[in-house]
């Protein structure tokens, strides 16, 4: 917090026209970090951290510009002008090309590139709008707006003081936004930064920090979600289900391909897709299921893939109350060696490396599916499809415990996580309706089989 405040103070003071003395006071400590080891450690850190702490910087960022607006209406005109430039050049088409065009227009307008800092801030804000927030070339182009070699300190005094702090801040901000979007800078970025700010500047240090961490973090997620999710709902379901199952043996079956048809009476019939997954071990478990106990179809459960939410359903059973019987030892089991030792000695405590894990009462999950529609009829089709490979499902009563969850599955990317979460909690609060008409179930399912 301290450093944020410090930074704010620093900027506001400067902008109010009293900057010279104060900034000198603070920034004199800054570049000295390496060259003057004799300085008190605490102050050194305090000030230099204003550049290190990325999140703090990003939060504090809008404040000075707002502040600026309030304080000095005339000066911040440039900001408005930059925003206008974007609106002007790219009126309705917001693409990478138009964005680049805006940048070009700006660079060609004035040789001195007056107001480039404001322009870059404005451009950074506009980037998501133009869909270029993940494009390294655009960031490089933006950095290219800075005039070269002007801000590079030329002597030790300049190097010691915070040389062109506003421009450096702005450069850091560009890198900051890259960092937030997970964009790794490339060599071009580095060359630009060196040309603009010199090789010991704050943006350069920011660059180095990013380059230190990003490659190391690149593969931290063992289950990466691709940036581009498959468009086809069946492919998406296939992807999601294999992701949940995390079993290389699990087999995905497409029970129904989505299609729309027009019935005889002229109504549109939409058949939703039904994609299920089941592994051999799940089949084995299901085959051992006690037929007198019901199995449940439950759902929908949400699965987030970046900012897309999909829903899946599971076929599961209640945890078996009776203890699992261990297979009795059969001395005539293995032809070649004894499978058990007849020794009255247990494992020594010192060598017992097993954890004491509390048993959770969670029933087995036999299969999972994703469907375009979460109604019982659709899911019944899934169950009848499963029945072909798991004949036991013909004898087991199947109960549907479905939440009246969101119907528009795959409401893709646009939906923000906030509101969707809310609807989820709402639906969960609704009492679960249990449909228990097994008698009625059976014929319907066999109908489904015939189809």
């Amino acid at each position: 917090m301290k450093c944020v405040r410090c930074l704010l103070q620093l900027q506001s003071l400067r902008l109010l026209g009293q900057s010279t003395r104060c900034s000198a006071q603070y920034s004199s400590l800054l570049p000295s970090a390496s060259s003057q080891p004799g300085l008190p450690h605490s102050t050194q850190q305090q000030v230099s951290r204003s550049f290190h702490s990325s999140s703090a910087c990003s939060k504090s960022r809008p404040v000075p510009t707002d502040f600026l607006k309030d304080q000095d209406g005339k000066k911040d005109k440039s900001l408005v002008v930059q925003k206008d430039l974007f609106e002007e050049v790219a009126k309705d088409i917001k693409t990478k090309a138009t964005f680049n065009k805006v940048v070009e227009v700006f660079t060609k307008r004035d040789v001195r590139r007056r107001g480039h800092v404001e322009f870059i801030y404005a451009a950074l804000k506009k980037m998501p709008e133009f869909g270029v927030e993940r494009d390294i070339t655009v960031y490089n182009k933006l950095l290219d707006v800075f005039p070269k070699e002007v801000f590079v300190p030329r002597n030790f005094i300049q190097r010691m003081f915070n040389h062109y702090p506003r421009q450096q801040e702005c450069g850091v901000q560009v890198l900051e936004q890259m960092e937030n979007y997970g964009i790794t800078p490339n060599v071009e970025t580095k060359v630009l930064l060196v040309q603009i700010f010199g090789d010991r500047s704050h943006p350069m240090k920011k660059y180095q920090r990013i380059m230190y961490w990003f490659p190391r973090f690149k593969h931290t997620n063992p289950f990466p979600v691709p940036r581009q999710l498959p468009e086809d709902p069946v492919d998406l379901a296939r992807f999601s289900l294999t992701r949940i199952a995390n079993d290389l043996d699990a087999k995905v079956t497409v029970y129904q391909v989505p299609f729309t048809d027009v019935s005889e009476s002229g109504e549109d019939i939409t058949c939703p897709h039904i994609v299920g997954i089941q592994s051999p071990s799940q089949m084995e478990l299901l085959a051992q299921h006690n037929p007198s106990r019901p199995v449940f179809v439950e759902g929908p459960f949400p699965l987030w893939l970046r900012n897309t939410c999909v829903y899946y359903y599971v076929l599961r059973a209640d945890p078996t109350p009776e203890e699992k019987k261990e297979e009795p030892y059969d001395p005539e089991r293995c032809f070649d060696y004894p499978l058990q030792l007849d020794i009255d000695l247990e494992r020594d405590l010192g060598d017992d490396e097993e954890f004491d894990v509390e048993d959770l009462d969670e029933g087995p999950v036999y299969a999972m599916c994703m469907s375009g529609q979460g109604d019982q009829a659709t899911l019944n089709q899934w169950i009848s499809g499963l029945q072909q490979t798991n004949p036991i499902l013909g004898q087991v009563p199947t109960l549907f415990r479905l939440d009246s969850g969101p119907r528009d599955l795959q409401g893709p990317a646009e939906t923000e996580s906030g509101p969707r979460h809310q609807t989820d909690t709402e639906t969960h609060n609704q009492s679960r309706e249990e449909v228990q008409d097994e008698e009625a179930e059976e014929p319907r399912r066999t109908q489904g089989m015939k189809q």
Partner: protein
Amino acid sequence: KTWCMCSDYCTEVGILMHLWHLSSKGEHINSFLFYTKQSCAEVFPYPEVGNEEAEEIQQLVAPVEKFFAEEVDSARIDQEAKIPPETMNGLKELGLFGMQVPEEYGGLGLSNTVYARLAEITALDGSIAVTLAAHQAIGLKGILIAGNEAQKNKYLPKLASGEHIAAFCLTEPGSGSDAASIQTRATLSEDGTHYLINGSKIWISNGATADIMTVFARTEVVKDGVKADKISAFIVERAFGGVSSGKPEDKLGIRGSNTCEVAFDNVPVPVENVIGEVGGGFKVAMNILNSGRFSMGSSSAGMIKKLIELTSEYAATRKQFNRSLSEFGMIQEKFALMAVNAFVMESMAYLTAGMMDRPGLPDCSVEAAIVKIFSSEGGWICVSEALQVLGGLGYTKNYPFERYVRDCRILPIFEGTNEILRMYIALTGMQHAGKILTGKIKELKKGNIGVAFGMAGKRLKSAFGSSVDFGLTGKDGVVHPSLEESAKKFEQNVAFFGTTVESLLYRYGKSMVDEQLILKRVADVLINLYAMTAVLSRSSRSISIGARNHDHEVLLANTFCSDAYFKNNYLMTQLQKHSPENNDANIKKIAKEVLENRAYICSHPLERTF
């Protein structure tokens, strides 16, 4: 002979040597290393054949050797993947199809020792060796050891003459060592006169040529009013109908032997063709498998001896830099390795065979398994080194080495894979050690000061360098003084092994079954110890009777023993708790991570992250 048994010898070694298998079923104790007064005599002195038998061997060996040298074209057998009928007839005429069948049934009635001797020669052609072994070591063994008089009379004469070929049908697509997953089923017909066998067996040696098959199938047995599925053994004639064999497998080696799938479709088998009792097939199978392995030692030894002849000629004639290959150290090393291996295999094989020939049908299954593992692995190394001597020439089909390499690769796989046999050796040993040591370890765990002090004292004593002496050497010792060093090393290993086993039992108890990496090392130590015993015993005898070149034997024995001594010490150090040499946890973790992904998971060294 008298054997001096000092008290130390009895307790220490007695305990340890229990590790070896002894028949727990009967009172007959036949462990080769269970050094009580009788069983010490089992390994020392080395078993001998009588003069008559020696003569018999001479008479048998000469024609067989001649036949293999002149009539058998191994390259052709390998190429055509078939043993020509004239070769088969020659083998039949020599009586090689009924070597162990008693004379009253028309066989040669050979002892295990003589059988092993002939196996040395037949092993010169892998395909013939496997065909013969599948026929008599397992195929007709069931009738021989568990069949009744009527069955023997009916089947053995024709099998012994080679008119009928036998096969052993146990393995199924879903069942290797697991008896519970055998799917072939024999159902009793309504009139109770015959069984109907249905199912299919895979990897059956002689599957296409066999007329008589020992088939294992599931039968329903009612025991104490409870119905249960048990394995039974049947003699099935191809003539019963319903037996069909698949396409012969196209194999890497032993290409001349026939291996294929055999399917049984409602094959009617009369009830009198059940071997042993109905439901007693498991024991029959186990006995057949256990008794079939011992000859692999002499087979491998025979093969290596032949290879030494072939390669040494090349090494002596080939010149590089005006020196013959045989002058180069690295080439010499290969020959030494082959000689030592052949010597150890021979020693083990004939020690085991000799023990099996003792009256009372001793159970030497652990020893046989040890011989099988040692000889199959040693054989593989030797064959590959022999090929290496010839370099590129050895890699071509102009020389027989590549064929030997291919043929040899089956040895660690069939007749029980080496992994499974290691489990058998180690677990059987542990079971016996457990029986003896359980009481002591329980006391120790309870905190009995007396026992703990006793053990600590013993450890302290050995730490201060008090030598271990089990009386193998010295006055009245069984080992010749020129092997004293080696015998001492053996004794030290044995003593160390005793404490190691004790601590393993203390640490793991019966959960040892799941500690395969530990069991593997225990088995390896046991294999080395048995090998050491065999060479010590054999060369002691050779010196004592003044055998030809016995000084060379001493040299081989001492070389092997000091090598095995270091290997054992290393293995046993690994077995100690928190041993830095022990990488087990890492090994398991690596395997887990690889197997979870079913792939090699490192990123490519040329990959970049930025």
